[in-house]
């Protein structure tokens, strides 16, 4: 009769010992963090928020280290890892949002640049109509017209890239086109001025 409480106590202590030493791996939190990271990848954070994306990956690696470290312990406690994984999910949402914002900003910049370049092309075409119509003037302007057409093609290509979601190449293309359009406008103004001054001298 005296032995029973003693055995019971030993059993209870052992069970408590095992229970405290066998905290479960936070699989739900791991899955949630991985899913959040997948969403970030889908949002193309690797392209449009690269540094944050790297930090997010690193944060997940850190969480996995914390989990594995707890698994090494005799008395396991995954609370810190769980907390960290929740942080990963939250950070992933922030990165996703930042990616979206960056993409939107870039889209706006590209659209503005496309608009500006189109206006530049229009004003170049307008200057073309104001240019002298003599055969020599026409020849000089034909060369410039070809350049305008090439810039116009670039604008269309940039638009296509924008529609296809290739924002960085689109930005680079339209920036180059805008620079060229600006130089054409300056060149065209020069040519017109030159011919106009020559006409006056005649």
């Amino acid at each position, binding site marked *: 009769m005296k032995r029973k409480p003693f055995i019971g106590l030993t059993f209870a202590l052992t069970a408590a010992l095992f229970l405290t030493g066998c905290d479960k791996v936070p699989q739900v939190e791991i899955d949630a963090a991985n899913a959040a990271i997948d969403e970030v990848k889908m949002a193309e954070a690797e392209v449009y928020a690269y540094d944050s994306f790297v930090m997010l990956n690193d944060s997940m690696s*850190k969480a996995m280290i914390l989990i594995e470290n707890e698994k090494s312990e005799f008395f396991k406690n995954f609370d810190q890892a769980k907390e960290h994984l929740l942080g990963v999910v939250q950070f992933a949402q922030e990165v996703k949002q930042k990616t979206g914002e960056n993409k939107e900003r870039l889209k706006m910049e590209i659209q503005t640049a496309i608009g500006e370049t189109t206006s530049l092309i229009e004003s170049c075409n307008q200057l073309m109509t104001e240019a002298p119509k003599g055969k020599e003037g026409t020849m000089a302007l034909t060369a410039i017209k070809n350049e305008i057409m*090439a810039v116009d093609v670039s604008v269309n290509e940039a638009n296509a890239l924008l529609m296809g979601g290739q924002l*960085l190449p689109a930005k680079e293309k339209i920036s180059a086109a805008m620079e060229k359009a600006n130089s054409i406008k300056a060149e065209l103004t020069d040519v017109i001025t030159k011919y106009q001054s020559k006409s006056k001298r005649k």
Partner: protein
Amino acid sequence: MGIKIRKKLVFFVLLLIGAILFLAGYLGYEAPPFENINKAREQISIAESLKAQEYAPAPYAEALMIYDSAMREWKRQNNRFFVSRNYSLVKTLVEKSEMLACSAIDQTAINKKAGKDNLEVKIRNIKKRIGQFEQTYKHYPVSKNDLKKLIKARLFLEEAVMALKNNRHGSSGRLIRQSDSLIVLLNKQYTNLLKEYFKLFTFWSGHVKETIKYSEKNETYAIIIDKFAHNCYLYENGRLVETLSVELGQNWPGDKKIAGDKTTPEGAYKIIGRKSGEATKYYKALLINYPNEQDIALFKKNQKNGTISKKAKIGSLIEIHGHGGKGVDWTDGCIALTDTDMDVLYRKCMVGTPVTIVGSIKPLEEILKN
């Protein structure tokens, strides 16, 4: 009673042995290399943020692979009974991974700089080649399509510069290659055209020598027109005294074949008329004897062999005249100078002054070398 005591004793002895074993195991328990793993992770993350996967792919990939192996080994050890766990391999692996990640970081810095420098050099070289092409063919009638290619080459290069500014070295490299292939193609195409045109160089050279010799021997002025350079050279007693810029017909390369082909003729001619005032609409003009006997003979031969239409007419009224300086080739085959330069020629060149028109006075090799 004795049995009960013995049982209790056995139970306590076993419990004691268990406790001693547990304590021994706990005290002798080797902790995993947590700090080392974290260091390796940090270094890999730094390498990734620097894009080591692009600039130092080999050490970066190896560092990542070994890190993954270390994590797997750690898991494997964790699945073992705690007293029999051994993390030495994990430690070795993460140390190696960290070392490789550090090496990837160093290599990235070096390769990134070298890569950027390399791309900058390539951009400079292509810019130079585009400039050289534009310079070489500044007077040459480049076709609309080829002009578009040239513009495209310049635009690709501008895009490459933008991509390089955004540290997108891969894209920059791709755009540089696109630009390069266009300019290489154009260079090859137009060099071949010039090679074909310059097949007559020996003939031109002979004409030029004869003209200078004539000027020296007869103590007179002589005009030599270099179509490729768009220059008019005035010789006095065999010495070069003036170099003036000229503008020609739109399709100046090659010899004039028919009226209206907008080509400036090539050959040895002389001034047969001088016009000024109301006699010319181009300020002042020196009429040359085009077509001469050889031109007429060649025209007839070409008509006979079908090279030119039977209905075609031979050109005439080729002049050296004013109203030039427009910066483009605009005449129907005449040679235009600025009015100031025309004054110089008009003052010195009388009827009978030889006018030699050639494709070039310099050999092609020299032009392309320059």
